[in-house]
Structures are given as structure tokens and as C-alpha cells.
């Protein structure tokens, strides 16, 4: 097992290296370094921004926003998804609202939030959450609908307390849906945070990316984009994957 995991990590590294290599080759072939700078050039920028502290300021601002919106969107979205998946009536009532919200352009939500709440953090986080909640709701609703009714009956017949039931019967079945909602979720949130920062914040990765985009400095744009990707890769390999391996032990053949 541990050997397999070690090998997995090795392959992961190799794959990442390959990605870098592909980029380096593409940059070399392309020639115009202003359009596609080499990995070395971007790394250099990254290093400079890390040294002078800019990177950390903006990265932490963005991460805080992402985390706050993620927490809000996941919890509200999960609750709504459970409700709509469980109760036909709730679903019939809420569905038109859900579809409307789901397809409300991010720009509209963001602009309205900034206008109503003001140009501040609260508005930024609310705008992102409003964009993300319906997506989580949709995913969790489908998951809830696919719950095994037999296990539900078992839990009912043994009068399992609601919390136990949620934790041991419902959540494990929803886990794949929650996992994909989280992965797709963070990435979506971060994409919206970029827009939110562009439209009305004074710091954050999105702010920087747009700034350097204005200046046509692709190296900086990529450097900041990559800083977040690195964070997400870390989260993926340090948090998500170990967690997934732990909760999916039961799928495996042997102990």
C-alpha cells in the first residue's frame, strides 16, 4: 500500500515535470516571450514578488475571500440541495429560483452586490457565494436523489438519531458528490473571485492579474495565476487525496 502510494507520488511528480517541460518547449517554439514567457521567466517573477512580499499580500487576500465564500456556499448549498433532493414540494417551489440564480450572470450578481452592499469585503464575499450556491445546490440535489432508499429505511427502522444518520448514512453516500462539488467549487469560486477583485477590490490575485494584464505583462499574469494553482495542488495532495483515500477504504478489496 505505502509502496503504491510512493509510486503514485513519483508519477505525480513526473507528470508535473512533464507539464513544465511541455510549457518550456511551447515557449521556446513560440518565440515571442511577451506572449508566452518561458517557465524560467515566470519563476523569476514569482521569486521576485515573493521576496518583496507582494505575492503574500495578494495571495492571502484572495485565499481569505475564497475560503469565506467557499464555506458559505458549501454549507448553504448543501442544505438547500438536501432539502430539494428530499422534498418534492420544496423542489417544485424552489426550482425556478434555483434556475434563475444558476443562470444569473456573475457580472450582474457582482455589480448588484457592490451597489447594494457597497465596495467592501462583505459585498465581495456575498457576490461570490451567490454565484456558487446554486451550483452546489444542483450537485447535492442530484446526490440526494441518488441516495439508497434501503439504507434510509434501515436507519429509520432502527431510529438512528438524525445526526448519526446524517454522518454515517447520508454523508458517505454524498461524499463523491461533495468531493466533486468541492473541487469544481473551489475552482469556480476562485474564477469568480478574480472577477470580483477586478471589478471592485484593491488587492488580491485577481486584482494583480488584471493589473498586469492591462500592462500586457504575461509573465506576471502567469506568475500570479500559478501561485494560486500551486496552492490548489498543495491542497489537493496534502488534504483532499489523503482524505479521499481514507473515506474510500471500504471500496477496496482487502483490509
Amino acid at each position: 500500500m505505502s509502496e503504491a502510494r510512493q509510486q503514485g507520488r513519483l508519477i505525480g511528480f513526473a507528470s508535473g515535470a512533464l507539464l513544465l517541460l511541455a510549457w518550456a518547449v511551447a515557449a521556446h517554439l513560440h518565440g515571442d516571450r511577451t506572449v508566452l514567457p518561458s517557465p524560467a521567466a515566470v519563476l523569476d517573477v514569482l521569486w521576485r514578488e515573493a521576496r518583496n512580499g507582494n505575492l503574500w499580500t495578494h495571495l492571502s487576500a484572495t485565499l481569505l475571500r475564497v475560503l469565506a465564500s467557499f464555506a458559505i456556499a458549501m454549507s448553504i448549498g448543501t442544505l438547500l440541495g438536501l432539502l430539494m433532493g428530499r422534498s418534492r414540494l420544496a423542489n417544485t417551489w424552489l426550482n425556478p429560483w434555483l434556475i434563475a440564480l444558476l443562470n444569473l450572470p456573475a457580472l450582474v450578481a457582482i455589480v448588484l452586490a457592490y451597489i447594494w452592499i457597497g465596495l467592501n469585503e462583505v459585498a465581495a464575499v456575498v457576490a461570490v457565494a451567490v454565484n456558487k450556491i446554486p451550483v452546489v445546490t444542483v450537485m447535492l440535489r442530484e446526490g440526494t436523489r441518488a441516495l439508497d432508499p434501503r439504507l434510509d429505511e434501515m436507519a429509520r427502522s432502527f431510529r438512528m438519531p438524525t445526526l448519526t444518520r446524517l454522518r454515517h448514512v447520508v454523508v458517505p453516500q454524498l461524499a463523491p458528490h461533495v468531493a466533486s462539488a468541492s473541487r469544481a467549487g473551489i475552482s469556480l469560486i476562485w474564477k469568480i473571485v478574480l472577477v470580483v477583485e477586478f471589478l471592485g477590490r484593491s488587492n488580491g490575485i485577481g486584482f494583480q492579474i488584471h493589473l498586469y494584464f492591462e500592462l500586457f505583462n504575461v509573465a506576471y499574469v502567469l506568475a500570479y495565476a500559478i501561485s494560486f494553482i500551486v496552492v490548489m495542488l498543495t491542497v489537493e495532495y496534502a488534504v483532499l487525496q489523503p482524505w479521499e483515500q481514507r473515506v474510500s477504504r471500504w471500496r477496496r478489496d482487502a483490509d
Partner: protein
Amino acid sequence: ETLRFATLKTGTVNWELDTIKHYELDKKAGFEMEILEMAGNPATRIAFQGGEADSMVADWLWVARQRAEGKDYVFIPYSTAVGGLLVAPDSPVQKLSDLKGGKIGIAGGPLDKSWLILLAYAKKTEGLDLAAETEQVFGAPPLIFQNALQREIDATINFWHFLAKMKAKGFREVVSVTEASTALGLDPETPLLGYVVSGDLVNNKPELAKGLAEASRAAKTLLATDDAAWERLRPMMNVADAAEFEALKAGYRAGIPGEDSVDVEAARSMYALMAELGGEELVGAAKTLPDGVFYQGE
């Protein structure tokens, strides 16, 4: 020969371009104009960078920075119209130092030319580090505009047509960028906004660059005097009432640069001053104005 322009469909440049097209000033200047309408400023940059457009509008500070980074871009003057710093009618703010601890809404980000100039101005005249002493809220121009109307922010720096509308609503100018540039030793006649074309075009098809300058000048001459030409433009100006219309018209006319070619020395001194005050953050790698930013005719 065609010359393709990437422009913001709602931008003020479109008034001029539309006039050129309508009165066939392009044909007279020896080229055919083609307009690529875009929904946002970033889009015009992509079109220009991607080679889908031959020209777009930007300010010369931006062009200088690009040149310093090795891109051969050339600036053809278009307008001296710039904004200023506006406060609400009932605001107690009289000078920049009154803004200490307040919130300034700035459209277009920390590299906005008006903001940079005001920053330098504050430092020079009042010894004030405006960036440090106030909170800046950067945002999309319409959002800054709306938040200013809602009094969420204490002062506003925005594109001039938004400022014109605000003035029509009674907002008061604390410092204008013209004032500030004068105080910084700059010729207020130095046009801040202009058409950007590649050096390639200037060198290989000089008649096109020249034609562009001529057509632009011809349109300005017309708009400077002819009210009928303005009436024609009115539908595309998105004005709510006559006051706004007049304010925009006056704003445009005030922004028409003089006939003389750009005073490069004045620009150089301003650039040096800003480089000194703001450092790399503000102007990028070059400490002095790179050569060849301004189009010099033939």
C-alpha cells in the same frame, strides 16, 4: 488601405471615429477605417496585441511603459481631456490633505493616469503621500460612479465622461488633472490620450499613420464648431438630459489638443518626476521617458 480600430463601443473615441466615418474623412486622408467594436477596454488590448486591430486608444504613460519593456508602440495624440478629483456637493474637502483617512474611488486601477498625476501633485505641493494616507477603492468605472452617487466614497477619480455627468449633478472638483499637471511643470496641452499604433506601421506605411492623424484632426475641427455634427451623435452618447449632453460636448471640445506637436521635453520632465516619486511601481522599468513614444509626423 484599411486601418482597423479596436474601440470600446461606449467610449468617447467612438464619437470621433463615427464622425470620421460619416463625413468620409478617412477616405479623404487616404485610408479606409474599419471599426471593431468591443464591450470592454481589455478586449481592445487583446485585439491590438493579437494583431486583429491596427490601433486602439490608451494614454501615453502606458505606451511609455510598454516601450520601456521593449514593445515598439507609438502614440498619436487624441485628447487632452482628463478628469480631476471630485467630491460631493456638501463635502467639506477643499484640498487633497483634507482627504486623510478617507476613501478615494478610482476607476481603472492603480495605474490610472489621473491618479498617478494627482499622486505626484500631492507629494509635490502638500508633501502628502496620498496613497498611504487614504484608502483607495479601485473598481470598474460605472461602479465607482454609482458608489460616488451613493456617497460610499469620499472622493472620485473617474473617466472624464463620468465626471462630466457627476458635475451635472453638482459634484465639485477639488483639483483638476490639468491644474495638477501645470503645477508639476507639465504643458497642460500635452495630450494624455491617444491612438496607439505599432512602430512597424509608422515605419512601413507612414502614409497610414499620417492619414490617421489628419482624419482625427479633421474630425476635431468639425466637432469643435459644428453643433449639427453633435446632434447626429447624440443617440450614441447615452445622455439622460440636455445638461449632460452639453457637459459632454463641452468636455470633448475642451479636450481637443492644440495644433502643435507634442512638447516632448515637458512630457520627459513629467515622466522623470513621476518615476522619482512613484518608482518602478508607477512607471515600470524605465526611469526616463523612452524615445519615440510620440508620433512626430514624417
